[in-house]
Structures are given as structure tokens and as C-alpha cells.
């Protein structure tokens, strides 16, 4: 009698452990992976999503010798929107092809979670927009359209949490006040006389570079006829087309702007900060790899352009393709992997 009961118990425990392992690995696979092996040796959380095309680093002949860089695993995670996911994939696959040990985590959260991840040691590499980072790290600092001025402020703040801001990319995904193509305005100032209905996500309404700046009498001083809070994303375009709102806060690389014939109003008073993308690496990882890692990352950052971001977004948001495929294709086309 004892035998079957014991076996049943074993099965129950094994199943439970499998579940626990599968669930736990989402957050920090580094820690749970060691626990897994003791209980369920078969369980091997395959975190990195299909990196098929990058699997062959053999072609990596030309540059920087064949010596694979040695150092700790670099954990990278995109924020939970398609552009950030694609950017994270591009950086991850590029580094992986160079021989770095990369772990791509499931995309989660937004800027706050990314910065938290860096400061509490869950993440080693994030790629963020410098203007956004400025409003998160130094909300009271005035915005600037000059990326170097922003870097000057945020680089030391990243050092405070033990991370280094590397060179920013020429690729920019800026804030944009978007109106319908036939709307009678070309600059944001034109809206002051338009009695427009304003739509934006909840975050915009408390940001000085967003709603507060548009309505501030010292900056744009626009009095909107009404405001609507709309979830950031395609719904902004739907609301704009339906004439429920006249102006929405979107990002300049949103593919729907081109697809649906909207126009981006000119920021004639320079309210919007520069929003170049830039990688941020934890210092310990950066030091472990020496100069090679920063050189490699800077090489990639310099190669990405704003048009690339738009092209990626068209693939992921309009054609509904997977971010890792889009990333792999782009890297291959550019000869970077």
C-alpha cells in the first residue's frame, strides 16, 4: 500500500515543482535555474525566443578577431510596447552574434520598471529614450531639444544607480502632437485658436513636457475645449479619425501617422525633449567585458536610424510580424550579424 501512495506524492510534488519552475523563471531565470535542476532536471526554461537566424556566429569573421568575449550573462528586457521589444531584440541578437552570453527576458513594464530592474540588479542592459529618462529621473529639470544637454543631466543620475549611459543613437522616437491631415494647424501654437479636443494617455496629463506644457500660459497657453484620456496606442488613431478628438499625443515613429494620413504639428516653442534611443548598461557588466562591450554597443547604436524605427513599427504593428524576426532581418540586411 505504501508504494503507490508514495509514488503519487512524488508525482504531485514533481508536477508542482514544474509549475513553480515555469512560473518563477519569468522574472529572474538566473536564480530559479539553479533550483530547477535539483528537482526537475528535464525542466529547462527556454526564455530566449527563437533566435534561429542568429544561431550561427560562424560568419563573424571580419571584425574584432574571433575571440569570443568572456563575462557574465547580459540580461536584457524590452518595455511592453512593440518598438521597445524590437529594439531590445536588435541589441540582444547583435550582441549574441558577437559571442556575448545574452538572456532576453519577456518584455514587461515600462520605463519605471526598466530603471528599477537596473538599479536592483534584475537587468543588465536596457535601451531607453533619453528624453523619457530625463522626465523619470529628473522630473524638475527643464527639457531640451539638444540630446547632449539631456545626456549631461541623466548620465550622472544613471551612475548613481550603478549604470552607464552609452552613446545615444541618431534614431529618435520623439513626442508628437498629431492632428488629422486636413486639420487647420501646422504648429502647436496654431492650436491656441482652434478650440481643439485633446486626447492623450493618463501619464501625459501630469508631465511638464506634455499637457502641462501645452496649457501653460508661459509656453503654449492652449485652452482645449475638452480632454479625453485614451490608452496609448492604436486607439489614439481611431479616436482621431472618428473626430472624437482633434489632437493626440503620440510618438513620431507611430506607423499609423503615415498610414492614416495624419500630420505631426511642429513644436515651434521647443517643448518636447530630444528622444534619441540609448543603451544603459550596469557598471559591473561593463567592467567585466572591458571596452569591447561599449564599443560594440556604440557601433550598433550609430547604425540605427529613425527611419529604421518606423520601418520596424510598420512590420510589427501594421503587418503584425514578430519582433525577433523583424530584428533579425534588419541586422542581416545591414550586415551587422
Amino acid at each position, binding site marked *: 500500500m505504501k508504494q503507490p501512495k508514495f509514488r503519487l506524492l512524488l508525482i504531485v510534488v514533481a508536477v508542482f515543482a514544474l509549475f513553480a519552475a515555469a512560473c518563477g523563471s519569468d522574472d529572474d531565470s538566473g536564480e530559479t535555474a539553479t533550483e530547477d535542476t535539483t528537482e526537475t532536471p528535464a525542466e529547462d526554461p527556454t526564455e530566449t525566443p527563437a533566435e534561429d537566424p542568429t544561431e550561427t556566429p560562424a560568419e563573424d569573421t571580419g571584425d574584432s578577431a574571433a575571440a569570443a568575449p568572456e563575462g557574465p550573462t547580459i540580461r536584457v528586457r524590452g518595455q511592453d510596447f512593440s518598438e521597445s521589444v524590437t529594439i531590445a531584440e536588435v541589441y540582444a541578437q547583435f550582441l549574441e552574434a558577437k559571442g556575448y552570453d545574452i538572456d532576453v527576458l519577456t518584455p514587461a513594464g515600462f520605463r519605471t520598471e526598466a530603471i528599477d530592474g537596473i538599479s536592483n540588479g534584475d537587468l543588465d542592459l536596457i535601451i531607453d529614450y533619453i528624453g523619457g529618462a530625463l522626465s523619470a529621473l529628473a522630473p524638475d529639470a527643464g527639457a531640451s531639444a539638444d540630446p547632449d544637454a539631456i545626456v549631461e543631466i541623466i548620465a550622472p543620475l544613471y551612475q548613481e544607480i550603478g549604470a552607464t549611459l552609452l552613446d545615444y543613437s541618431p534614431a529618435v522616437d520623439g513626442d508628437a502632437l498629431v492632428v488629422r491631415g486636413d486639420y487647420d494647424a501646422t504648429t502647436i501654437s496654431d492650436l491656441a485658436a482652434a478650440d481643439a479636443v485633446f486626447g492623450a494617455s*493618463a501619464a501625459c496629463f501630469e508631465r511638464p513636457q506634455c*499637457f502641462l506644457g501645452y*496649457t501653460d500660459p508661459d509656453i503654449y497657453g492652449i485652452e482645449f475645449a475638452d480632454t479625453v484620456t485614451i490608452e496609448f496606442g492604436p486607439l489614439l488613431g481611431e479616436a482621431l479619425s*472618428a473626430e472624437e478628438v482633434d489632437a493626440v499625443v503620440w510618438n513620431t515613429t507611430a506607423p499609423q501617422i503615415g498610414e492614416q494620413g495624419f500630420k505631426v504639428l511642429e513644436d515651434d516653442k521647443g517643448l518636447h525633449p530630444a528622444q534619441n534611443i540609448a543603451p544603459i548598461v550596469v557598471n559591473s557588466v561593463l567592467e567585466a567585458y572591458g571596452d569591447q562591450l561599449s564599443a560594440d554597443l556604440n557601433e550598433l547604436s550609430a547604425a540605427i536610424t529613425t527611419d529604421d524605427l518606423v520601418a520596424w513599427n510598420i512590420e510589427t504593428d501594421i503587418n503584425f510580424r514578430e519582433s525577433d524576426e523583424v530584428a533579425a532581418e534588419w541586422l542581416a540586411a545591414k550586415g551587422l550579424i
Partner: protein
Amino acid sequence: MIGGVLAQAAVPRDVGVFEFLFGAEYWTGAGGILTSLWDTVVLCGAVMIVATLVAVPLATVLAHHGRGELSVTWMVTLSRAVPTFAIAGLLVPLSLRRGWGFEPWPIFIALLLLAIPPIYLNTYTGVRGVDRGVVDAARAMGLEERNVLFQIEVALATSVMLVGIRVAAVQVVATEPIRAFLGGDGLGRYVRDGLGQNNDNLLLAGAILVAGLAALTGAVFGLLRRALPPGVRRIR
């Protein structure tokens, strides 16, 4: 956009939960708690009225004639399976393209589908559950069929019906805040803004308001049931 601390849709970050809930300036004005509360109550009230008008007569007539037993099983399943947020979310773009705006149709229809099953279910089982002996006695005493339905069956099922309406009302009130995530306002706006602006105090205050209103709704229907005449109340 006149007056009110909340007119700009942003609550200062340093406002505490209790300060927010008990501060008069947060209750009045555009975007204030009173306005949001009113938005929520009006929508929920409209949904409940329509849901009751649809579900109660249908269920009563079917139960009286002993038809559609299977519909009860369907409703039980449905009441567990309706994905309110998904329905409303899918309807919003449709509504926008037709020029009907963000509100109220998408959220109204989604909440209606949420509210109908419990009311239908309780009304049907309530009417069916009336003691057959009582119904037969009424018929034997010469009551017309119409009066058997209204004076006996519906009257005796009232208590059970009210329970169904109460369940539906609490669900509707507790679910209505999703409308804030779909271009609307109402009490859910504080939850939405709290999440979007990373303002935990606002988020918590919003959750307390929503939960409070839901609890209050339940309590009101509980009192309503108590107000029924004793004979009707006892039969469940």
C-alpha cells in the same frame, strides 16, 4: 474645463489617500469625485434598468410555461464566461468608426451582457421554484392564469429575483470602472490615472471608492429585500 483641482485630470503626487478621500476640494468641480460618482451611477442605473426590463419578463414568461429549461444552463455558463473588457474593447473601435463616439454604447452593451445572466437566472429559478401546490390551489380557487402568474408566482419569487438583481448590480458597479480605460470617465478614472501616472495613492483611493460604491450597492439591495412584506421575504 472650469474650476476644480482635478480639472487638469492630474492629482498632485504628494496627496495622501485620506487627504484625497476626505478633502472637499477633490469632491467638487470638474473631474471631482462627485462628478465621477454621478457618471458611474447614471450608467450603472441605466444598465440595470434595461437588464431588468429584458431579463425579468422573459424569464418569468418562460418559467411560467415551463419552457426553456436549457436557457438556465446557458445563462449559468454565460454569466461565468462573458469577457466584459474584451467585448467593450472590441466595440470601441467599431463605435468610433460609426461616429457614435467612445461612450456610452460599447461599455453599455458589455455591462448589459454582464447584468442579464444573474437576473434571468434568479427570476427563472425563483418562478419555477414556487411551490406547485400553491399554484394548483390558486388555479383551483378560480384565479385566472394571468393572476396566477402575477399574484402568486411573481409575488412569491420577488425575493429571489431581488437577490439576482443585487448580484448583477454589484457586478456592474464593480466592473463599470473599465470604461475609464476605454476613453470614458467615471469612478475608474482615478484607478486609470493612478496606474498611468505611477501614483499609488490615487490608485488606492480610486480602488477604495469603487469598492465602497459596490459594497453600498449590495447593502441598498439588502435593505430593499428586508422591506418586502414578511410572507414574501421568507420564501426564497
